[in-house]
């Protein structure tokens, strides 16, 4: 039996990063404050001292510039990991991500692949107000050519980077700042993870709760509460938001015949609207109840804690929604 260790979400990322840098000389980390400051969220703390400034590059506040440079370096044979401090600043690099990283393979007729990994901090829940609280996974997930990963668990924080760096194509890794200090047990031999499949995190028979990112632990805890009341919920972490692994959640719906989709992103044109559509298109006759969604309220996220909490689904909302689906 393998042993487990207690580890924070932050430390899991750092271990993944260190391992990557140790394994391949072509890999380097570039981003704002990743070196001397130790990473805006201390994920890369100490790595500059360990690997030197060629491998851990502090960059100026030029999101489009350095993300573009990462893409160029990838084209020319390097394996850059580009860290974008927060997803809101990431918008300034959207041109590079969407117009260059995602298109070059196609518009060159297959000649130029772009093996860049772009890590972006994301999420709502730290009273950072409207310009620093976002769940913008849907923006990225809309774009063909990108692989979009959402890190909802410590296992994935530890292992997704490793696999992302094997990808010949651009990978966006969405990380969640609100989870950085969260401790969980993971296996000590935890390493690379698959980045093509969703994962059934908890198996159940009464309802499929489909989620990603910050929703994963929330939904797991909700499922525990529901279990105490005799409801056996299955929890699915989508993990890969593009290309979507529909097989996993369709199979789950075929088993439970009910689905609730949970996300922090704004409701309209979101990941959940896509999942819901696919269930309608491909598993309609499996359903015993209409698919329900719990999403972010469509408002710029406000500063006060009570309003912020009211903007995104909470555990109590999830529990309530599940009960309403099962006992209408």
């Amino acid at each position, binding site marked *: 039996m393998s042993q487990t260790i207690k580890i924070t979400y932050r430390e899991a990322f750092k271990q993944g990063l260190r391992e990557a840098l140790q394994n391949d000389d072509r890999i380097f980390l570039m981003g704002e404050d990743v070196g001397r400051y130790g990473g805006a969220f201390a994920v890369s703390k100490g790595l500059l001292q360990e690997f030197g400034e060629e491998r851990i590059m502090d960059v*100026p506040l030029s999101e489009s*510039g350095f993300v573009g*440079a990462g893409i*160029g370096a990838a084209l020319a044979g390097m394996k850059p990991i580009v860290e974008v401090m927060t997803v809101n600043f990431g918008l300034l690099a959207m041109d590079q991500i969407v117009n260059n990283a995602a298109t070059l*393979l*196609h*518009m060159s*007729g297959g000649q130029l692949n772009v093996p860049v990994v772009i890590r972006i901090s994301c999420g709502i829940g730290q009273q950072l107000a409207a310009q620093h609280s976002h769940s913008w996974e849907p923006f990225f997930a809309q774009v063909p050519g990108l*692989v979009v990963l959402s890190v909802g668990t410590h296992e994935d924080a530890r292992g997704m980077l490793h696999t992302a760096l094997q990808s010949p194509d651009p990978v966006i890794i969405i990380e969640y700042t609100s989870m950085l200090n969260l401790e969980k047990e993971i296996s000590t031999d935890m390493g690379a993870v698959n980045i093509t499949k969703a994962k059934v995190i908890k198996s159940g028979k009464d309802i499929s709760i489909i989620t990603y990112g910050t929703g994963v632990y929330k939904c797991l805890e909700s499922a525990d509460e529901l279990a105490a009341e005799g409801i056996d919920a299955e929890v699915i972490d989508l993990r890969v938001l593009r290309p979507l692994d529909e097989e996993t959640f369709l199979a789950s719906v075929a088993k439970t015949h009910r689905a609730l989709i949970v996300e922090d992103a704004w409701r309209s044109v979101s990941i959940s609207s896509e999942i819901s559509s696919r269930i309608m298109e491909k598993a309609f006759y499996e359903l015993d109840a209409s698919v329900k969604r719990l999403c972010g309220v469509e408002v710029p996220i406000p500063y006060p804690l009570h309003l912020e909490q009211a903007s995104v689904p909470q555990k109590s909302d999830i529990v309530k929604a599940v009960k309403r689906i099962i006992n209408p």
Partner: protein
Amino acid sequence: MPKTKSKKIDLDAKKSRHLFYQMLLIRKFEDKAAEEYTKAKIRGFLHLYIGEEAVAVGVIQALTDDDNVLCTYREHGHALARGMDAGAIMAEMYGKQEGCSRGRGGSMHLFDKSINFFGGNAIVAGHLPMAVGMALASKKQKKGNITCCFFGEGAAAEGEFHEAMNLAALWKVPVLFVCENNLYAMGTAIRYSHSVQELEKKGAAYGVESSAVNGMNLMDVIEAANEAVQKVRDNGKPYLLVCNTYRFRAHSMFDAELYRDKKEVEEWKKRDPIPEFQEFLLKQKIITEKEIKKIENQVDSEIQKAVDFAEAGTWEPIDQLTEFVYSENETK
């Protein structure tokens, strides 16, 4: 208007003829592209390089095969100067799968990895950060090659230009920025888009060495480019070369040219780089009238071959539509 200076550069007869051939090839290729566009053989946006030939030819001759080249959406001339097959370019513009980008890109997205030609980039200034990244990779890999990035003066108003200049200087990477100042960002004259119109001055803000050259004169461009390329190669640092030039044709085939005076265009046409270089070669007795005729015939036949190749090209089957979105080989 800048004056044409007379330069003395050692160009052997063979190279002179080759460069003349390239300029003429670009001119006639673009004429043919316009013709094919009116016949609806080429669709989408078509941006012609006519008038600016001396810039691409003069700069690219200074590069080695290992150097990287990135261009804008007005890049047919650069592709030809870099040695891309005219047929592959024409087929690309026809949208045929025999095109250099399998027809997926069209006129604005010519790519050929085998000659280190990285587009064909149609977001103004979007390729500048990539060029810096490619140069950064060269530096990290100690490859010794340089990256040459062409863009227009319109791009110099974009944030990505300024970010790229700063990053290149900060990181000391071997990139040659070539600003093709043709005085119009689509239909907006430079006086309406730049507070400082001597674009070479923008280098100083970033500690990037820069110079400006008359882009209508091949010999001037060659001299400036040779010097700039040598500097980038020797000291591994970026350089900004501004080539002041002019496009004789409209911005694209949709452009009624309401923003500039016909007389202005006629004035610039008097400085057409091709007759000027031809005159120079004749005067220097590097070439004869007879040889010019021969070169013209060769160019015509190459272009005819390109059109024939494009015409004979085939359409990619629709069932292949979703290819090249992700690499097939997961372990590349």
